[in-house]
């Protein structure tokens, strides 16, 4: 069956449950396609032999009551996977093999899925183009010269290129939604506290959240219902009633109030994005939603706030990579020398830049002016959303201020790179759920995404809105398999 990899997750699950396909057939198809797609550089570590063995085992004694029966899946290399190298895209963890499993991936394997390998990402998830990875940049299947977005660039590329039926990424400031937007796929960043952070290499603890990346909204809902569990091992995990998102998914969003924040009309925003947003508003109306203009007055401060809070936490979170216990070590004359050499050689430029920014903003004499002030602004940004949700059920914005840019285009201009997160960052700062769905193409034919932001714990609602709009938009990705020779 040559078209196995073209099937969505939901189709594959149904076909395996109906015994039209075996796990081995499905796994083999995705493994073969992955093998032929090395040029994309989506994988850091392949685990194909084990995956095929696991599929065979599954087929011998298939449990078809599971939600992901025998489904092969590659995951972002930020999730610790037992006995399989986990690098976070960094040289400093190049040789690190965890003896433990992250809660999110464990939840996935518990539902019958099979690990195929670990997907490329920006080093420690710091980047918007997957160009900071120690393992090289990833190509966007849309076009050879395009970045796939970041930090979950390997994940977005792999889903768009159908190397994996579905995947998971992590999103600290847009790292799921922006690459989804760049590759014409769907990406959900859940409410902070929805998915356990246990076993995920930390970037910025108060912002990091794992989430599904899929070809369509229904698949996304199914994976979200698998990965979102309350976990006592994560003190910030929240014990709330979780829906069976895929079962409760509905296209009926009649009467839902959707807010349009005027502050997201940023200076210099390309007309194509403006037009896409307008189109999105029309689609929402077509679905029966009510459009309401709202204001999120502190939006302008979100990006600077993020670039204080996230590096501050990162500078401390990454202190453990010191060459003493595990990972890369450069020998030195003494302890300090060893630290300096290990961390200078082990971390890439972007990671070092953020460690320095973070160290600076937490330093005595600067703490109040930067970190403390940023925390106050963060509260104001959250209050903006709280006020808006008095009036609306969800908010609609563009996912990114542009379509995918060229490889190398922004690597020497960090600020321009950071600006790519302008629409996604406020959502992380406020701890809210946000989903990016493909909604159209720019003049060059590159995909563009729309973001739907929900109330905390209201994933079901934004999935429903996305599901309804997805049908109206009827987006088709133009992928030509150019990389398969």
């Amino acid at each position, binding site marked *: 069956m040559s078209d196995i990899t073209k099937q969505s997750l939901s189709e594959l699950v149904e076909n395996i449950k109906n015994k039209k396909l075996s796990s081995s057939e499905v796994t083999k198809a995705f493994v073969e396609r992955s093998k032929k797609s090395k040029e994309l550089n989506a994988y850091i570590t392949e685990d194909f032999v084990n995956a095929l063995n696991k599929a065979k085992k599954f087929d011998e004694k298939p449990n078809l009551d599971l939600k992901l029966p025998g489904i092969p899946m590659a995951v972002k290399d930020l999730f*610790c996977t037992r006995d399989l190298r*986990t690098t*976070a895209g960094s040289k400093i*963890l190049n040789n*690190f093999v*965890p*003896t*433990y499993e*992250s809660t999110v991936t464990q939840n996935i394997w518990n539902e019958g899925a099979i690990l195929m390998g670990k997907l490329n990402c920006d080093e420690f998830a710091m980047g918007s183009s997957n160009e900071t990875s120690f393992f090289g940049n990833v190509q966007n299947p849309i076009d050879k010269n395009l970045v796939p977005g970041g930090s979950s660039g390997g994940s977005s590329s792999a889903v768009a290129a159908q190397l994996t039926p579905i995947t998971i990424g992590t999103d600290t400031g847009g790292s799921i939604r922006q690459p989804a937007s760049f590759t014409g796929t769907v990406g959900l960043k859940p409410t902070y506290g929805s998915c356990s*952070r*246990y*076993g*995920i*290499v*930390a970037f*910025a*603890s*108060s912002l990091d959240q794992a989430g599904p990346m899929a070809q369509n909204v229904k698949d996304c809902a199914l994976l979200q219902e698998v990965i979102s569990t309350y976990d*006592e*091992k*994560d*003190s*910030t995990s929240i014990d709330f009633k979780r829906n069976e998102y895929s079962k409760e998914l509905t296209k009926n969003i009649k009467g839902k109030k959707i807010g349009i924040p005027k502050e997201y009309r940023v200076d210099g925003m390309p007309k194509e994005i403006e037009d896409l947003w307008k189109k999105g508003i029309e689609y929402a109306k077509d679905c029966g939603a009510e459009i309401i203009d709202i204001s999120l007055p502190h939006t302008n401060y979100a990006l600077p706030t993020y670039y204080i809070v996230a590096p*501050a*936490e990162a*500078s*401390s979170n*990454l*202190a*453990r990579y*010191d060459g*003493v*216990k*595990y990972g890369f070590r450069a020998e030195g004359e003494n*302890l300090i020398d060893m*630290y300096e050499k290990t961390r200078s050689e082990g971390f890439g430029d972007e990671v070092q830049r953020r460690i320095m920014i973070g*160290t600076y903003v*937490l*330093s*005595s004499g600067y*703490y109040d002016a930067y*970190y403390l002030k940023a925390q106050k602004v963060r509260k104001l940004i959250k209050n903006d959303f709280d006020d808006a949700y008095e009036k609306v059920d969800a908010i609609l914005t563009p996912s990114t201020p542009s379509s995918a840019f060229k490889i190398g285009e922004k690597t020497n201009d960090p600020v321009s790179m950071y600006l790519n997160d302008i629409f996604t960052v406020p959502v992380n700062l406020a701890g809210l759920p946000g989903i990016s769905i493909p909604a159209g193409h720019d003049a060059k034919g590159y995909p563009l995404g729309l973001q739907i932001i929900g109330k905390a714990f209201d994933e079901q609602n934004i999935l429903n809105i996305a599901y309804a709009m997805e049908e109206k938009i009827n987006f088709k990705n133009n992928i030509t398999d150019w990389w398969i020779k």
Partner: protein
Amino acid sequence: MSKNKSEYLINRHDNQYEVVIGLEVHAQVTSESKLFSTSATKFGAEPNTQVSLVDAAFPGMLPVINEYCVKQAIKTGIGLKAKINKRSVFDRKNYFYADLPQGYQISQFKDPIVGEGKVILDMPDGQKEVGIERLHLEQDAGKSIHDLDPKNTYVDLNRSGVALMEIVSKPDLRSPDEVNVYIKKLRSIMRYLGTCDGNMQEGSLRADVNVSVRKKGSKEFGTRCEIKNVNSIKFMQMAIEYEANRQVDLIEEGQTIDQETRLFDTKKNETRSMRSKEDAHDYRYFPDPDLLPLEVSDDFIENLKSEIPELPDEKKKRFIEKFKLSPYEANILVSDIETSNYFENVIKKSDVKLATNWIIGELFAALNEKNLEITESPISAGNLSKLINLIKDGTISGKIAKTVFEQMMEGDKDPQKIVEEKGLKQESDPKTLEALIDKVIDDNRDKATEYKSGKVKLFGFFVGQVMKVSGGKANPQLVNEILKKKL
């Protein structure tokens, strides 16, 4: 050095200096598991056998607060008569060291779990109150071992993540003696509460000592130096004496004191500069984003209050009022919970006055000689109680009792049995005693004559003779009475 008995002053030329001391005590929380992980905390385990992925800071590992440690800290706060903060925050204290796997210590900086409190010290010339500034919870670091290999340092992470309480005093202490009493009192309170075993040899209690000096009568504090990580009371006292004199010398020479961190060299008995204020670490404290603020309810605190046992100050008051003990006696008996329990068990069935004297006198001396704790006493409270009753009802004399006591120290024997087996019962039959006395007078006719002619001092000689002849068993009171009549 000091002018009157209680004031500790340093004299130089015509100047008198007062020493100002504040302590930061690090007390290991008594708990089976660590502050943020489930690893064991047993002392003396093989290196790196009590280490979890969290303690070793593996990627993606997260801290989860141990509720028991929180309870222990709050109980200690209650014992220090301190304000319990219903909301406290864990912060990261960032610095690099090989035995600090996370690259930061989780501690409490701006919002500690316990606020201001106090400790009462019983000094020879009365009571003194020492203010407590705060108590906060924090992780211990691992241990770097530098002497196993000439080139490499080894790291043992067993201690990494163990819960500590840092108890910060106000700068209210004024002498090495007060420091001694303060540490002992703090330890006593925590041992009563079961929140810290106070074992200084095992490092369960250590302190950073802040020392400054000022001219007597001055209201302003001098510049202080912090002496890091001193692990015995004796060393604390030595370090303070050295450091205070060093500072006074500098001032007398017209120099200024640099605010700095110093180390106490126990071999040379001196403090040495470790780092100056300029070189001080910038710890970049910020709230740990892996942990939510710690919030406890009024009910939670009230429940813990109901678990607090009678503490030394209250116990002392009760002993004085109920048992008519002197403050001195009460102080000794309440100083640690095991002693006070022993005492209360003894007096359940015996005379308080005698029990007090025997415990503080004979028992303490005997235990001291054998280097035993009260919990290791060969004489159980029940048997000491029996011994006291034998004295009280006249079965044996105090002198014989000491012989019996010595035998009891050899193993927990019933004093009644010892008395019976060795025939040590006191002779109180007047007729038997009269016969004995008659014989003694008969044998010493010449002395009896001297006595009658006015040499009254010889009375003691006769008492001694009677006791000797009776093998020490004669009731001394009766002997006195009868002798007086007979002579």
